[in-house]
């Protein structure tokens, strides 16, 4: 099978993205990006606000996400729920999402409904209205959401604890949905204050993707978003920074609902920065080399194949953030291997990787896949458009986003090893064990049966 194993080169250079991307700004400061895809008569409008959970004031955790929910209540022109109902009546779907660095609202509809979507989205940028009743009911919905997505899921609770331990001072330490005791206290005034300060055209990016003409989008955007007044004096985000980490951080969490124990470690890592994405690109390769496909990754080969101590092992990197990125490792041991042994095996494998360096064949395969991904991603323009929105809200420029595939393609094995030596520093990390509650585990099983 020699022929199959030899690398196929997807052209000599990166394929040129087929998606046409254009961008411009309105006079009030709103940035607009248009991603064209004329294969289907569909359009997705997303408005991204450069504000998220990491911008909340202490004691008000969850307000960015709570406001996101309240944005579906009424405005001066629309009654509560009318926006979503209108989208649905037009055969579309809509939703919103909040992260630490951004909050975004989208509608996916037939391309000829774009003007209506813009009219409604522009309306709620400044015209939000809500009653005390709306706020009280929606707070219960958010508490139910927290119940469902966090409090019922030991993995989610554990991630929340890990994150809180990782950041001592930065807003990345809080959960996006908020701490339960603080969600319970969020009120209408909090929501409006946050809204008035951050929801403005000069703090927003409009991304329109699909079967549209950029000139038409421009004229529509000028009509609907153009007249909205900007917030005067809105500064770039400057958040509290982390003090030096002086002590290794470790935690053990037990929960009766855990069946498969695991160890995870998260290191603070360099993030993508405007004009400077090369370290982040090297870390992307490091994550794929160590923890991509289990059968080919360094950790997978060592810990699942050669000396099978793990049922699952992975590495991941998140560098798309305003302030700090993170690099993570996880190992779930096979029965009979303790978490302590698993961690030792993981550390030994990382140490061995630092000695041996990059497997050049594996590195070539990743480069091949990178080039192919630029072809495959043209089939999913929404995902491409989402990438633009995320990248721009964290402060990257259109040029940075366009250059990213080339920056990735330029990474060398030496770059990867240099980045690895910088990131693998335990005094820059938090390590966590998630385990079953031994005492009540058997009791729990009886109840289930």
């Amino acid at each position, binding site marked *: 099978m020699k022929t199959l194993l030899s690398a196929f080169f997807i052209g000599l250079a990166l394929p040129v993205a087929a998606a046409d991307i254009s961008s411009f700004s309105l006079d009030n400061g709103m940035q607009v990006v248009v991603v064209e895809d004329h294969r289907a008569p*569909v359009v997705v409008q997303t408005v991204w606000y450069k504000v998220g959970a990491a911008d909340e004031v202490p004691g008000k955790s969850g307000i960015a996400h709570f406001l996101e929910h309240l944005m579906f209540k009424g405005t001066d022109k629309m009654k509560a729920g009318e926006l979503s109902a209108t989208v649905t009546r037009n055969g579309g779907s809509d939703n919103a999402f909040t992260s630490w660095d951004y909050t975004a609202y989208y509608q996916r509809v037939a391309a000829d409904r774009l003007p209506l979507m813009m009219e409604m989205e522009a309306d709620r940028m400044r015209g939000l209205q809500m009653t005390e009743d709306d706020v009280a009911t929606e707070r219960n919905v958010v508490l139910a959401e927290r119940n469902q997505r966090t409090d019922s899921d030991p993995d989610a609770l554990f991630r929340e604890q890990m994150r809180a331990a990782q950041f001592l001072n930065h807003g990345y330490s809080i959960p996006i949905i908020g701490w339960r005791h603080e969600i319970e206290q969020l009120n209408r005034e909090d929501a409006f204050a946050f809204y008035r300060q951050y929801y403005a055209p000069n703090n927003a990016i409009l991304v329109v993707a699909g079967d549209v003409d950029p000139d038409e989008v421009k004229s529509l955007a000028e009509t609907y978003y153009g007249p909205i007044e900007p917030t005067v004096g809105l500064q770039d985000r400057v958040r509290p920074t982390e003090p030096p980490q002086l002590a290794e951080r470790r935690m053990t969490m037990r929960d009766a609902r855990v069946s498969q124990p695991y160890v995870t470690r998260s290191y603070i890592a360099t993030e993508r920065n405007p004009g400077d994405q090369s370290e982040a690109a090297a870390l992307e390769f490091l994550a794929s080399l160590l923890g991509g496909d289990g059968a080919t990754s360094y950790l997978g080969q060592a810990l699942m194949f050669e000396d099978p101590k793990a049922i699952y092992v992975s590495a991941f990197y998140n560098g798309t953030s305003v302030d700090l990125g993170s690099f993570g490792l996880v190992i779930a041991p096979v029965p009979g291997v303790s978490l302590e042994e698993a961690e030792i095996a993981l550390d030994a494998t990382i140490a061995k990787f630092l000695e041996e360096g990059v497997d050049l064949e594996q590195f070539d395969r990743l480069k091949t896949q990178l080039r192919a991904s630029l072809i495959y991603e043209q089939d999913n323009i929404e995902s491409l458009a989402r990438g633009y929105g995320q990248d721009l809200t964290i402060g990257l420029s259109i040029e940075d986003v366009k250059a990213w595939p080339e920056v990735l393609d330029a990474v060398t094995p030496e770059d990867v090893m240099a980045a690895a030596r910088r990131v693998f520093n335990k005094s820059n990390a938090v390590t966590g064990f998630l385990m079953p509650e031994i005492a009540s585990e058997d009791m729990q099983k009886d109840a289930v049966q």
Partner: protein
Amino acid sequence: MKPFISVIAGATLAIVGAISPVFAQIDVQEITTEAGITAWLVEEHSIPFTALELRFKGGTSLDRAGKRGEINLMMATLEEGAADLDAQGFAKARDSLAARFDFDANTDSVSISARFLTENRDEAVALLRMAIMEPRFDQAAVDRVRGQVLSNIESNTTSPNEIASSTLNALAFGDHPYGSSPSGTTETVSGLTPEDMSTAHTRALVKDRLYVSAVGDITEPELAELLDGLLGDLPQFGPELPPYVAPALTGGVTVVPFETPQSVVMFGHSGIKRDDPDFIPAYIANEIIGGTRESRLMQEVREKRGLTYGIGSYLVPYAQSEVVLGQFSSGNAVTAQAIDVVKDEWRKLIDDGISAEELEEAKTYLTGAYALRFDGNAPIASILVGMQMSGLERDYIVHRNDLVNAVTLDDLNRVVRELYKPEELTFVVVGQPDDLKSD
């Protein structure tokens, strides 16, 4: 892996087909190869890759007695070594070609989804053929994947969602394959051998239960040649499918105590077959009751009362049964109240029916939403293969919206009265709900 979820996906695909003028441009061709394989093809040459979808009817329901989980484990091990490549060699070869293969096992089918580049299509398909025709099922590979499956099975025992769904499945279907987890149990999976994998392989992947669609940068003759090379040597026939089973959901509440801040609630009763002439009105009714954010259940349970983050209902037509299902989670203090709201909604359906306005809104939504699904090679390939499995013709895409628009209010309310049965609505609650006990 989970019967309810996987079949919901299949049901959605079946109803999706629809057309607006815009989809006149989706030209679905049907080809039959020399080896007798029928496939649907949409040529789309603007991006140099092809999405190929293969489905085999039967799925995990073909597990032999005492071997529950064998087809699930077999599908998960297909990619773990084939012909002269071991698991790692296979993965390296696949990655060198930048091909993407997914193997999955569902209640009524197994699926193979592949995407490959035009520039190395022959090599990618040759590699896929090795996985499909010459899997090795090495002991080490079977053991490694078995370890992952056993870990999942163990995790399911402490997952409220899994406990709810397996409890409701067991109530509804008993000893029928639909009544137990397709992943199998710790006991059955621990006993599976490489030989069982080979047997499961010849039972599940057979030509007369095969459905194929392809969308992308490939022509009719190229696809025909590809399919014969890839699948022509599969066995022709498989074992008999399991018999029909009527869901035994007759009402009542079953509480499974579980320490967690909220209760997971699943509810359901008998449903409607996909090929029933009333399926379209039933589908519209479900959209109104629990299909969208604007549905009655979402409005009553979430928007007006704040009792849940989300609630939905589904028509689930299995190959050999059919149910109506719903699901939500609520804080333990308000679970009983939320269940009462759901029961009230079921009663209101029968007492008051659905209004002309609701029907019109649902028609507008459903006929408008159709086109939005056909938005990429991979999604279109998936829709097309789902249509074939549901016995729909290619032109269903063209007249599906007419079928929706033709439903009258009288039709709809007649079907509602036949389909929805307040006294049979059966609830499974996993949690520590206040003021609620099994009856």
